[in-house]
């Protein structure tokens, strides 16, 4: 509105702002344990119960806006904040690393809003692990919860645009078009071209998008003692792979599921350049001289292997 006009409008019709209530001591982030109010946490916990009860089913929830951007892990963050108690031990990773900028940022936010929660970088010590793009190399134990950040909750999105139609397809267990997509890949490329976010059938019914973990991590979802919770904040869905549940990547009988290949030109499995491990997912990068180097993507695993070797 015109700046001068305000002075002509009777006092009573102008917006009243009570400046006294706005000061830094009211900074909400330091006042409320876990940032979210208790109604929001309750909604998420109820959603989690439903998700665990119907393995692989995407449960819609309202998904509050968080102070970090959509796409940076707000779905995972809301789950973590709803679960954390003061006796929990939290680990946050991104790309397998505790030191990645986004992991550091999320960990800082959680430690600021959840005073009393212990932080760790060592997978076996954690009760809750929030992660983006990786499942840690150390197998999950009973009682451990892995919270995965999810950009695309629905594996059917590659074959069907409409969410309403996808919901029906899931309900009917109709994954025919997904199978056709895999088949067409074989016809065109003699390979299934899906690299990460590999469609995985949970408990024999719902097919999930396991989040952008590499295919290397998909078998880690199958029949393990830990609980996996998936949070898609922007898309407002939560789903779960409970402990000791079947998780089968979609494949044909005569086309085995294959994880990323780390063999060198001589046919040997590449070791980690740092710890020497030959059973971990490797990051590939160029060193200062421009030669290709391979190193564990899971920084905690790499450090632990190095310690054990010494």
């Amino acid at each position, binding site marked *: 509105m015109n700046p001068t006009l305000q002075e002509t409008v009777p006092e009573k019709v102008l917006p009243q702002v009570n400046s006294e209530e706005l000061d830094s001591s009211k900074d909400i982030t330091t006042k409320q344990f876990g940032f979210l109010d208790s109604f*929001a946490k309750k909604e998420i916990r109820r959603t989690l119960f439903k998700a665990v009860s119907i393995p692989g089913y995407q449960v819609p929830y309202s998904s509050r806006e968080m102070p970090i951007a959509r796409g940076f892990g707000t779905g995972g963050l809301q789950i973590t904040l709803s679960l954390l108690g003061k006796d929990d031990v939290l680990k946050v990773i991104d790309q397998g690393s505790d030191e990645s900028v986004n992991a550091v940022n999320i960990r800082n936010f959680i430690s600021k809003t959840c005073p009393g929660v212990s932080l760790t970088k060592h997978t076996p010590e954690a009760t809750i692990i929030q992660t983006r793009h990786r499942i840690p190399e150390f197998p999950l134990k009973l009682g451990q919860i892995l919270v995965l950040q999810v950009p695309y909750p629905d594996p059917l999105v590659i074959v069907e645009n409409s*969410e309403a139609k996808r919901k029906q397809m899931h309900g009917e267990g109709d994954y025919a078009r997904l199978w056709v997509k895999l088949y067409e890949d074989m016809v065109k490329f*003699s390979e299934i071209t899906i*690299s990460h976010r590999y469609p995985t059938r949970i408990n024999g019914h719902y097919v999930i998008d396991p989040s952008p973990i590499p295919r290397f991590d998909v078998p880690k979802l199958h029949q393990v003692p830990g609980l996996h919770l998936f949070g898609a904040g922007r898309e407002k869905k939560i789903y779960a792979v409970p402990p000791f549940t079947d998780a089968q990547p979609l494949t044909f009988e005569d086309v085995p599921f294959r994880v990323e290949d780390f063999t060198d030109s001589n046919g040997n499995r590449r070791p980690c350049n740092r710890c020497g491990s030959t059973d971990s997912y490797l990051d590939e*990068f160029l060193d200062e001289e421009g030669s290709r180097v391979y190193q564990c993507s899971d920084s905690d695993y790499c450090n632990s292997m190095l310690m054990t070797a010494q």
Partner: protein
Amino acid sequence: MGYVAIKGGENAISEATALLEFLRVNNQADPPLSINSIQHQLHALHSRVLSEGGIYHPELAGLAIKQSAGDTLEAAFYLRAYRSTCPRIGITPVQKTEQMRLIRRISAAFKEIPGGQMLGPTSDYLQRLFKFDLLKESPERFREIAKTWLENIPDEQLPDSFPKVLDSLRAEGLLPSVESKPSQPFDITREPLVFPVPRSAALATMSRAETGSLLAIAYSNMRGYGNIHPTVAELRVGYLPVMLPHPISGELMEAGNVLMTECEIVAMYRASEEDTKPTFGLGYGACFGHNEVKAISMAILDRALQKGEQQGVENPSEDSEFVLLHIDGIESMGFASHYKMPHYVTFHSDLDRLRTTQQQGEKS
């Protein structure tokens, strides 16, 4: 050899934050921007952020603009994140926009409307020529403009409320009749959108949508991807008294008021179902702040979405999933930004597939 695959971390973040803050204060010649200046001198920007932030808090909207250095997406984001921490303490009854204390009101449908047209503060008929004297505006000159304007306003008392243009059309039977029992509005902040969604969910989503996104999809409709042939029956801007029941007596009382823009369009009629007369279609748009382009875009999309629901989707602007899931600025900007984050693991996985597929190609 250290762990080199990913580094940066804590120090990098805090240094980057400090550098960003320095950019804001880098010009020491000027005084810091006051929230008051933002609210008044940048009122268009302020209105936009207020509406996209989805919480009516003019002072915090000003702070959000200051903190985000004028980035509308970021500023609205601050308000939304703040909103997440506010518990819902009650639900207002339906507010009547007839009660709006108007600063502007126009109709493109009729030359004369009950209560009269009131142009109010509008940029519509400005000639967009620079006022070069504003390059160096003195405080004296600044105050002078206000003083002159105030001295010259006629002493005239406006009525407290104006009738709605649509009411007269409705009385003539040119509009569909209103449902006698309005259903409880859908609260998009407490419930996820599961399609198909009620109209109130669509309206709420559009009301806090990003202006540019809403405009782009509405414009596609205007240009011919499903043109609904809109006419602005009434566009009003003003302060809407917010009525709440008194905590003890339960009587409705005015708790405050909000600056709002409301737009009602009528769209070309179509053959209706059996046994009823054909009528014009209606589209409704409303948002916080003074945002006319947004309110008009919203009204057009409201009509287009209803058309899609009744007659089947033929254009993007008629598809409620397409429209409602792609107009939220906080969501779309967040996802666009997330591509800047490390994707080492997934990219390596992509490389693995491409290399293997290339090898398969060589073999065959």
